[in-house]
């Protein structure tokens, strides 16, 4: 009886985190939404009269272009991270216990350095007088330094470099739990390597792929530090647009409207994934219900 009760009631221990979420997540988002339906005052302050034009303004072509560019950045960052992480996570999962720990440490160690310093150091490596250019020049492989920063190439390198661990870790967790004798079983049943990967390995590591992709795609869509430091002046993304709207144009209501869209987008992405999982579960349940359940006699009748 007691156990049943405690299972139904939310335990008291979740109260601190609940309070945290309310104070630092729900209330700020509320404030942002509140600001997004106001006017910008003449001196950058907020005019409290109601105004829905900010949302309309966000659909102007110039902003849609920026959203499209950000989506594209997030999409290819996710794709490259996925392509790089999967073999790495697979290799890690198949390594010995000791090697697993060492490889995990190697993936995590970069996090010990400050984010901005990490991004800035890329500038030194990729820059006109940077390590790569000077080596290539010395070897006479190129005659003029390659332009690798202050453009979209620099941004992609920075994005992939920073987001890779967010993809590797969930993927590793998924593959570490994977029973590799299933691959032997597939080979044994006549599947080629490619068929085994497509039919067995990928479907069973899908949760890791989905989680990793969300972890990369959502923050990559709103990223502003990396484009700011490595993208030069030419490239404007959603993240940079919002910072500039707040800090340079001092248009808090419009910035809030853009931010609301970003939150909405993240939530939509999550809901999509959750609904897919729910649909899978539902399918499974339906399959279970339709299957007739008379247990056959435990003694096995062989109908010869």
């Amino acid at each position, binding site marked *: 009886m007691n156990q049943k009760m405690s299972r139904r009631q939310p335990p008291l221990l979740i109260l601190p985190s609940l309070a945290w979420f309310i104070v630092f997540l729900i209330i700020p988002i509320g404030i942002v939404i509140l600001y997004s339906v106001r006017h910008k005052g003449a001196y950058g302050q907020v005019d409290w009269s109601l105004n829905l034009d900010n949302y309309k303004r966000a659909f102007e072509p110039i902003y849609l272009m920026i959203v499209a560019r950000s989506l594209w950045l997030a999409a290819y960052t996710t794709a490259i991270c996925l392509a790089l992480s999967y073999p790495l996570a697979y290799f890690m999962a198949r390594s010995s216990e000791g090697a697993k720990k060492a490889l995990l440490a190697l993936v995590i160690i970069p996090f010990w350095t400050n984010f901005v310093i990490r991004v800035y150091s890329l500038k030194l490596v990729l820059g006109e007088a940077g390590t790569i250019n000077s080596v290539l020049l010395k070897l006479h492989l190129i005659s003029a330094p390659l332009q690798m920063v202050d453009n979209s190439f620099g941004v992609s390198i920075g994005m992939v470099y920073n987001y890779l661990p967010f993809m590797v870790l969930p993927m590793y967790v998924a593959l570490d739990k994977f*029973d590799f*004798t*299933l691959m*032997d*079983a*597939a*080979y*044994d*049943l*006549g*599947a*080629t390597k490619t*068929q085994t990967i497509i*039919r*067995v390995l990928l*479907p*069973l590591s899908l949760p890791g792929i989905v989680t990793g992709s969300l972890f990369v795609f959502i923050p990559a869509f709103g990223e502003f530090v990396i484009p700011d430091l490595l993208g030069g002046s030419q490239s404007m993304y959603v993240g940079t647009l919002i910072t500039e709207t707040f800090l340079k144009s001092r248009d808090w209501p419009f910035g809030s409207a853009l931010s609301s869209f970003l939150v909405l987008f993240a939530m939509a992405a999550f809901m999509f994934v959750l609904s897919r999982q729910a649909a899978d579960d539902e399918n*499974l349940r339906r*399959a*279970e219900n*339709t*299957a*007739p*359940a*008379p247990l*056959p*006699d*435990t*003694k*096995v*009748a*062989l*109908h*010869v």
Partner: protein
Amino acid sequence: MNDQLELEFEHVTKSFTGDRVVVNNLSFSVKKGEFFSFLGPSGCGKTTCLRMISGLERPSQGLIKMSGKVVNDIHPHKRNVHTVFQKYALFPHLNVFENVAFGLKMKKRPPAEVKERVERMLRMVSLQDYTRRSIQQLSGGEQQRVALVRALVNEPAILLLDEPLAALDLKLREQMHRELSSLQKQLGTTFIFVTHDQGEALTLSDRVAIMNAGNIEQIGTPTEVYEQPASTFVARFVGTTNVFSGPASHATIGGGGSGVAVATDGFGTLFAKQDEAKPRPATGDNVGLVVRPEKIRIRVTAPAGSGHGGLGTQSSTSSAPAPASAVTPANGASAATAVPTDAPIPSGHTVNVLRGTLIERIYFGPTTQIKLQISDRLPPIIALVANQTATKMPSLKMGDRYYAVWDAADSILVSSSQPTASQST
């Protein structure tokens, strides 16, 4: 090449990195339609043999042939060999039907044929109503059957079974034994079975290969490996047994034929009949002398004219000294071998006699296993007494002294294996 041979190993060696030899120069063949087992302790190389047959491992040296053709370089998916894996390795994201259909789909069979064959196989193991179940909803025995038909639906020439019953409880295991035997007879498929359970191997197989540390110690029918073990390792691994060892010398034994006397350490001189088909050990050779517990008769009084302590004597009367005890096969060894013996030792036969204190008595139902301690520093003698006659004799009391008597013809001479060989009971 012999058409009757499904599989041949010719001097096959497999070593992994670090020069660890897992399978050492194996040569043997398996006939078409045979139920062949690899039996051995874990780490003896039996699973590696299986993986080489399926193609998941490549031999380091030697040739593997199937139906006369060398298959060393043939990929697993091109071999007509399918495996039932130790923990079934069923695909958790697919339902029962999709699991069984997997192999046929890989071979791009038409959907109608896939459906027909999968359903026929599922009917065969009474799982026809389970097609849309997920694997997680099945019991261990049901999963086992799905794994079995997932392999068999592809009509393999050879079905490999890697300890497929290890995860099942005893009752289910016995049921699966019957099911496996009848499936095998019905389909005529060559089954190659790997197990460390000697009872299972003896019950199911046409022939058994007993493996130890990468070598085959003996290949034979269940009766052969039980009744005529080739080494002390085999004798110990297959069934419960008493093993003595010592230098051999020639002897004449009663009941006709030449014999061998083994000067054991502590048990005195024990006698065995020389099997004429086998080479006679040279005098002074270290040999093993094996006697099964069910061959030992327990006596309250000393056999007439006999000495104690393993002195071979002539049994002087036609009726054995009473009370005699009948015996049945050793526990665990299943009923595959050993005929219960209630007959008195024929007159004139040389018998081995040891005297010891009863230190252990385990009731098995039809039989009782007893242990006689001959001397403090020696392992006890294990004997099996049939309970139907045990009631006729004075009940055996713990701490009392009894005679263990057996016909020299029931002693088995074996080559002496390394002492690392484990004892199995």
